[in-house]
């Protein structure tokens, strides 16, 4: 089986400081990969390099495109990369305000990606927007409200609907549950797990919350100071941590 995404020796430096280096892994279709680590460990840098928001200083990011098979997204032309960004890729920001257009209605937010790939029939766009709002548990009568009239959890769910409407194959998530209270987090995780399984999505989830990866991720990568220190199946890494840092991370989780 060919991987959907193949990352080879990716590195990013901020001057003399290391953002991340020597990161390699393969992600297969339908697989969810978690990246955990403390603040400043290079998780977000890595994610931004993979999603094309940052240009890595070294390495390859190969993506299995629909048209041409494996392509290096670092060296491909900008229009192609941006096209991927609004069709096969989705990016869920930690802060919903970064991923939404706050002055555009919920329906417009969901419809934007459809219109960006050429949908020109208002009725169809609206129908799909209603369908997707339903899937993320937002009432259909809120379709013409602005995101700023939504609660934090609803904004995050709207952001997810907006990203998934074009049926992407790979979703990048940067702390999708950050800043939400635990009951809202639980609902969001439930929703995400359902969508990922139902649509057969591949996903890369960056988080510092071990509970999130325990619930969502098949595989886990632990990062520290820009390096990958441990990888493996999620349960294996969390239940039997080998590296000293992973042991520290797992033992740091507060028990209620």
């Amino acid at each position, binding site marked *: 089986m060919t991987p959907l995404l193949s990352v080879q020796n990716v590195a990013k430096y901020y001057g003399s400081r290391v953002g991340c280096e020597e990161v390699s892994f393969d992600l297969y279709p339908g697989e969810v990969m978690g990246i955990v680590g403390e603040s400043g460990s290079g998780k977000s840098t890595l994610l931004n390099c993979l999603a094309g928001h940052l240009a890595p200083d070294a390495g390859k990011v190969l993506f299995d495109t629909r048209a041409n098979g494996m392509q290096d997204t670092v060296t491909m032309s900008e229009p192609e990369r941006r096209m991927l960004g609004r069709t096969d890729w989705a990016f869920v920001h930690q802060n919903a305000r970064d991923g939404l257009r706050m002055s555009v209605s919920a329906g*417009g937010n969901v419809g934007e990606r459809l219109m960006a790939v050429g949908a020109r029939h*208002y009725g169809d766009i609206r129908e799909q927007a209603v369908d997707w709002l339903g899937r993320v548990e937002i009432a259909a009568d809120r379709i013409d409200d602005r995101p700023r009239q939504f609660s934090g959890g609803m904004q995050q769910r709207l952001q997810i609907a907006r990203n998934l409407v074009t049926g992407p194959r790979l979703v990048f998530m940067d702390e999708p549950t950050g800043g939400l209270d635990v009951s809202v987090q639980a609902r969001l995780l439930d929703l995400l797990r359902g969508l990922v399984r139902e649509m057969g999505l591949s996903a890369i989830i960056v988080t510092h919350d071990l509970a999130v990866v325990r619930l969502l991720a098949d595989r886990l990568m632990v990062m520290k100071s820009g390096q990958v220190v441990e990888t493996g199946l999620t349960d294996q890494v969390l239940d039997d941590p080998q590296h000293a840092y992973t042991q520290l991370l797992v033992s740091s989780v507060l028990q209620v």
Partner: protein
Amino acid sequence: MSDQAYNFAYLDEQTKRMIRRAILKGIAIPGYQVPFASREMPMPYGWGTGGVQVSAACLVPEDTMKVIDQGADDTTNAVSIRKFFENTAGVATTEKTREATVIQTRHRIPEEALTEDQILVYQVPIPEPLRFLEPRETETRKMHALEEYGLMHVKLYEDIAQHGNIATAYAYPVRVEGRYVMDPSPIPKFDNPKLEMAAIQLFGAGREQRIYAIPPYSKVVSLDFEDYPFEASKANHPCDLCGAEHTYLDEVIIDDEGGRMFVCSDTDYCGERQANGHRGRLSPEMEAAQ
């Protein structure tokens, strides 16, 4: 003031060359916004500094100039710009659309079809059609470069979601020659179909320092949805002075009891129709007869 106080048409020759280069580039790439080094003009931004600079760069001493503001020849903006060129360029001026070779306009296209011998210069306040949805200039330029125009339809979507139809009535976005999406300046959407014309159309935005153009006979398509097609709308009324039913109308409040009249916004066109004997509901002759 002595006759030597100004170079012909106010701007110095180097500046005019710079502006002409921008105009040529604009014509070569229809709808593309060409940056240019806009000069301070002796009038405030928003009064047509961009249009004035483009007109100045186009004028030759043999030209006849017409200036219109909202279709009228006799409003402040039109009168002051016409006077400006009378003083600084000494060109002949006219109010007749047919006799003019250069027409500077704000917010209207003349009703009478223009010819290949004419240049129509628009004053543009905000040249970037994507601006209100995407405030970053770096991003909008990239979107133009990569033809990513989905966002323009988001604006139209919002219109329909809020108002039940495309409520944008002026500055209605168009696509030129199947490539660049362009703001046609705040002309009513009634005028959009006229953008496909025989005359050269130049757009100047002084404060924003952009020039763009539509060459003669270019294909100009107003953006819309398949199920909400573009409609060139106007007030459903004939002109009260000349009786025309096919022109764009201004609504004028005439008393404090709800009385109103609709008149052609193109004063020259309306005047000519009246001279030819056309009469509307409130024209002086009709009132006298009653």
